């Protein structure tokens, strides 16, 4: 009886407990991945563009570190996890942290210690966690020291190499062949770089370029896995030393890959040499390289920073340039030996193959104690890349400029393993600018599925070629605008048609904006293709190839198609595609304009040219001080054009005199438009300007977050303009007041087109947008190819092309090499799902396994029944 009572009490107790606690609701875990593509903290800001993250930090060491960590927290966690993932041992990261802390931290000067601590704290305050614990300075230190640690432990070949069945045999054979070989083998690294100056370059000033290498396949898949995260252009404005622009990875205080430039006009690059001897005492390369760029005014100082307290790890060929003196140098640095080459005339290239005998002796022969050195002492022998470099640099001797550098760096085998490319020249450095390419510069996409890996690694994504982008790290007044919009869905808008342009079996990116005439669409591609396409069917009317790179756009006047290219200007018959005339006058990126029998365009040599539109005879030219990327606009008799020297010029085309010029704080690459006696344009000083077209007086200016490269569009009293700060702005044309803005996930170079109540434009986040003209609400958007999602800011095919709209359709090109036509009005959302072919094996396995088990059971039951009967 007592027990029964007890039972009742217990039952009641349980019921009570259940009813009491049932009010607790289940916490909804909203784990949706929001793409953080812009940010501001204190004086720091970040934006995405063309696969890169531009990050500006400034101030005291701790402060700038904190800004860095805070704004790139997700990306830093991502890179730490990558380094963690490439090692087979679960505890590898623990070990790396301890090792970095124990052997390197003490050699860091207080300044960099604080910067690292700041980064860690910034990440921590954004709740950045590794293995469930908050990120601390050891994590940040360890990622900075990874290459030095790997040099130390000679573990350049890591996971999953060790797990392939014959790794032991492979590594022994490769070691043996390496030791007895007399032929030059390619170094594991495939960084390539060159410097040119004096007679070698087109203007006698310096051109510098470098590509980082990746790797794919079973042994070196992880190189790409790491390299694709090296997508940060870090702009550091310290309280002491020079302002620096560094191409690097999130969380790094140095470059590692290596690209540096500073505001004293110095450039520092590197290609890695063999693993050499090292010593414990001595400063880590992190510290020496960072000091070299932060505190050097000259090549001598730089060399000094590298040689002082050298610890010998991460032996490199350091390329240095001083744009003030026009001198370039190469410092091949091992532990005990180094070789220094300097010149003010000529070129120096570097591709992991040291030329200095002593350095070779130390690194490459077993007598120099190089651990995997060869038995035979050997002289320098050029590798394939050495040969190619020499051939191309000789071929273009005297005409080397940024355009040639792009060409050289996109040529195989030089670009064979490249995962990016950076180029600058003296004139760009003046404005603290550079050209950058994320992905393989020749346009090849890295498809991770082609190099599968026994088990998927988080973040092992494709690395598409994201196209060339020109950026300037200028410090100007800026205003931060941001709204979080979520449009990461898989929903797609169906293209009416699409057409792929191809050259050399590769997708041929399109930077150009199409032109429309008589139901035909005209567009050109980067590798020189010129196309006429039927606007309704998407079939080609004709195609031609000019053999030069081109990012200019076509214009049609009187049945003639005019087009610029890196080779010069062309005139085509618009119906047949035949070349009527051409002028080889150097690079033209601007879209030509035809007016009263003249064709005008701006050139990379800084001139505005006027040609006879009939035969291409040069009629006159007007010089500005730097390159021109802006396209001219003619209104009345005045030609308006921007130049990288920071001015907008108004030139009378009749008298060929300068009417007025207006100075902005940065290069003017944006093309002006003229309406109602007002000129509208943007500048890299972050502003959109409206000037009086007659006098050049400022009517209003509007400050965005970063440079304005996009050209404005004007419709019904509203100026629509995109900015590198990821936003599309609608401004009142009269007073420059902000009507609305819309945030995309990356910078906007494409110029908007207004049609049927929509504002159409592309963004370098890989999406094409249609906004409501009135309020800026998203009407529809589409990502025809790769687009930014989550922290993978480098996965994109930017849409730089400015759309044109016509007869209910909107047309644009993309860096994925395709021309698209969408219905401009209606938008059918059709979910695009990845096709998965379910193998027959799966079905068979599901069914057969069940049948076999059932049969065995039945068999047993029948047999045992018989026995028992």
């Amino acid at each position, binding site marked *: 009886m007592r027990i*029964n009572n007890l*039972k009742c009490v*217990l*039952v009641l*107790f*349980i*019921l009570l*407990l*259940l*009813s009491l*606690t*049932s009010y*607790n*609701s*289940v*916490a909804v*875990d909203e784990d949706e991945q929001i793409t953080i593509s812009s940010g501001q903290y204190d004086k720091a800001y970040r934006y995405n563009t063309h696969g890169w993250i531009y990050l500006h930090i400034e101030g005291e060491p701790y402060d700038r570190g904190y800004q860095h960590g805070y704004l790139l927290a997700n990306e830093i966690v991502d890179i730490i996890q990558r380094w963690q993932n490439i*090692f*087979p*041992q*679960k*505890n590898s990261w623990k070990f790396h942290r301890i090792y970095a802390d124990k052997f390197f931290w003490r050699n860091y000067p207080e300044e960099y210690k604080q910067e690292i601590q700041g980064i860690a704290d910034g990440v921590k305050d954004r709740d950045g966690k590794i293995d469930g614990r908050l990120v601390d300075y050891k994590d940040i230190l360890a990622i900075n020291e990874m290459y030095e640690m790997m040099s130390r432990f000679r573990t350049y070949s890591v*996971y999953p190499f060790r797990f392939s*069945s014959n790794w032991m045999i492979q590594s022994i054979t490769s070691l043996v062949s390496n030791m007895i070989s007399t032929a030059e083998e390619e170094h594991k690294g495939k960084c390539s770089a060159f410097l040119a100056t004096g007679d070698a370059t087109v203007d006698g000033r310096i051109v510098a370029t470098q590509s980082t290498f990746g790797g794919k396949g079973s042994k070196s898949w992880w190189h790409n896995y790491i390299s694709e995260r090296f997508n940060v252009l870090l702009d550091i404005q310290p309280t002491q030393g020079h302002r620096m622009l560094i191409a690097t990875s999130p969380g790094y205080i140095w470059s590692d890959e290596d690209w540096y430039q500073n505001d004293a006009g110095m450039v520092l690059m590197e290609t890695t040499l063999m693993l050499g001897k090292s010593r414990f005492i001595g400063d880590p390369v992190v510290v020496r390289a960072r000091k070299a760029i932060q505190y050097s005014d000259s090549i001598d100082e730089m060399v000094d920073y590298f040689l002082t307290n050298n610890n010998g790890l991460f032996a490199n060929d350091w390329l240095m340039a001083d744009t003030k003196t026009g001198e370039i140098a190469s410092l091949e640095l091992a532990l005990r030996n180094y070789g220094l080459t300097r010149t003010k005339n000529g070129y120096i290239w570097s591709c992991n193959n040291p030329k200095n005998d002593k350095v070779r002796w130390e690194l490459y022969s077993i007598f120099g104690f190089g651990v995997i050195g060869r038995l035979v002492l050997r002289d320098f022998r050029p590798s394939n890349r050495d040969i190619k470099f020499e051939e191309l640099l000789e071929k273009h001797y005297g005409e080397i400029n940024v355009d040639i550098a792009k060409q050289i760096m996109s040529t195989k085998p030089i670009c064979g393993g490249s995962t990016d490319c950076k180029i600058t020249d003296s004139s760009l450095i003046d404005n603290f600018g550079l050209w950058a390419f994320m992905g393989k510069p020749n346009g090849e996409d890295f498809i991770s599925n082609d190099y599968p890996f*026994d*088990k*998927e690694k988080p973040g092992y994504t494709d690395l598409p070629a994201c196209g060339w982008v020109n950026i300037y790290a200028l410090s100007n007044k800026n205003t931060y605008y941001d709204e979080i919009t979520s449009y990461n869905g898989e929903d797609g808008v169906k293209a009416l048609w699409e057409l792929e342009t191809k050259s050399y079996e590769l997708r041929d990116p399109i930077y150009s904006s199409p032109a429309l005439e008589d139901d035909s669409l005209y567009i050109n591609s980067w590798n020189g293709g010129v196309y006429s396409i039927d606007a309704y069917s998407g079939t080609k009317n004709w195609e031609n190839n000019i053999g030069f790179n081109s990012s200019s756009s076509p214009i049609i006047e009187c049945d003639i198609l005019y087009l610029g290219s890196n080779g010069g200007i062309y005139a085509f018959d618009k119906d047949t595609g035949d070349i009527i005339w051409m002028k080889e006058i150097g690079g033209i990126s601007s879209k030509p304009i035809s007016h009263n029998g003249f064709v005008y365009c701006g050139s990379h040599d800084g001139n505005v040219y006027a040609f006879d539109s009939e035969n291409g005879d040069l009629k006159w030219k007007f010089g500005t001080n730097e390159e021109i990327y802006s396209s001219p606009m003619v209104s009345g008799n005045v030609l308006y054009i921007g130049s990288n020297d920071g001015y907008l010029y108004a030139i009378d085309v009749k008298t060929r005199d300068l009417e007025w010029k207006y100075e902005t704080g940065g290069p003017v690459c944006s093309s002006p438009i003229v309406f109602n006696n007002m000129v509208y344009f943007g500048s890299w000083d972050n502003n959109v300007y409206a000037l009086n077209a007659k006098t050049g007086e400022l009517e209003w200016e509007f400050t965005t977050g970063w440079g304005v490269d996009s050209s404005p569009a004007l419709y019904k009293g509203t100026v629509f303009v995109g900015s590198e700060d990821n936003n599309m702005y609608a401004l009142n044309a009269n007073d420059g007041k902000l009507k609305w803005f819309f945030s995309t996930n990356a910078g906007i170079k494409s110029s908007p087109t207004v049609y049927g109540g929509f504002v159409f434009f592309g963004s370098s986040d890989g999406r094409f947008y249609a906004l409501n003209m009135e309020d800026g609400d998203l009407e529809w958007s589409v990502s025809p190819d790769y687009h930014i999602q989550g922290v993978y800011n480098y996965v994109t095919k930017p849409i730089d092309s400015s759309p044109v709209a016509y007869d209910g359709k909107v047309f644009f090109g993309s860096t994925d090499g395709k021309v698209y036509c969408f219905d401009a009005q209606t938008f059918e959302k059709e979910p695009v*799902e*990845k096709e*998965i*072919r*379910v*193998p027959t*094996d*799966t079905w068979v*396995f*599901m069914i057969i*396994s*069940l049948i*076999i*088990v*059932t049969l*065995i*059971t039945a068999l*047993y*039951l029948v047999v*045992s*029944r018989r026995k*028992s009967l």
Partner: protein
Amino acid sequence: MSALILAFIVYLIILVLIGIWSSKLNKTLDDFLIGGRKLGTWPVAISAQASDMSGWLVLALPGRAFLYGVSAIWTAISCALGTLFNWSVVARRLRRFTEKLRALTIPDFLEDRYKDDTHTIRAIATVIIAVFMVAYVSAQMVASGKILSETFGWSYHIALLIGFTIITFYTLMGGFFAVAWTDVFQGMLIVIILIGLPIAGIIKMGGFGSVFSAMGRVDVNTISPGFGYGGLFFLLFAFASMAWFFGYPGQPHVLTRYMSIKSEKKLWNSTLIGMIWVIISLWGAVLIGMIGLAMFKDIPDPEKIMPMLATSLLPEWVAGIVIAAIVAAIMSTADSQLLVATSAFVEDIYHKLVSPKAKQKRLVFYSRISVFMLSVVALVFAIPGENSAIYFLVAFAWGGLAASFGPLIILSLWWKRTTKWGAISGMISGMITVILWDLFGITSYMESLSVHDELVVPGMLPAFFVSFFCIIFVSLFTTPPETKKLFS
């Protein structure tokens, strides 16, 4: 109060009523521990399976299928074949031998089989059962904590405490009768759910093909029978997945079910029912994991996939029953295991060694106390278990029992030549191998090399063979006991 919670509570009340009703049948320790060897076909068949499968079936196996897709079928195959092995090779003889020897528990049986007057076998067996059963019950408590916290939003620890209360209370009241009869009720319910839920899911997804495609989109390996592995790795993967097979003959809580059947003749029917139940449930559970993967793609704890699927696919009150059934499944195993562990203390130690003449009433009372104590110990071990996978907790306990008793039970039943020392060496070597392998040795070594979990061969596999050969080897050098009568 939502329909979900209402259905859940109503269900539990029904179970409690069954428990109260059946507790009236418990008069002797025999009744409490093995239902007085009076159980019919259905109770034996279903309860043997239900106590075997447990929270593992409804949480861990779908969780595995969520992670590994169709390749989780290897585990299902090994379990189905393992069950068949038990019914065909072990059940009949065990029933016959234990009846002849009047053994109530596995230690009982082993001691009598080897005529061990020194009680060494009994002592070792009892220790092994106590250790691994507590681990096993712990795994069940973790499971109950996970499921309750997921469903009702309680914190894991509160959920764990409630789970503990329900399990303990329920076992205390009923003893074997309650356990066996509630097992039947729950076993039937589980099988209905494991058929119904996948069907609902497949309809929702629009056919089998789209389930596969959706899985493939998440991870293409999940629609490959070898989880994307080829060659030797494929074999290793399949082998590691199928290690469960070797555990079947060694599970005391399942074996006692065979001992409790009313007559040997009913075994055939029980086998038929049991096997149908097992095959349906295993494939159903795998399907649930696969459909879950297709629908949810990524969830924090894959082992919670079945409750998630139930709440999203079914009407609320049905989902409540499903959740209740899941908890019930956990209970059905936990209570059987608690009973087996209890029997190890009360019957094997106290009754047989300490106080052979103790009254039945006192023994039942001690059993209840011991159930409570063991539950508390299991609870303590379950407290930090929020983040551990039930799959591996169960694999450890299962492996320990499998290696210690599996080879021994088989050889005891089928090889006359087995000796006492063979038996002792077999139990000890099996247990040591499992512990060294899983806790200290190979597994953690493999993990440190970052070998993927699914390729790590669980300890039960090597331990089974070590134990097997130890018994044979030692037996060949020692004198066998007199067993003519037993084997006749």
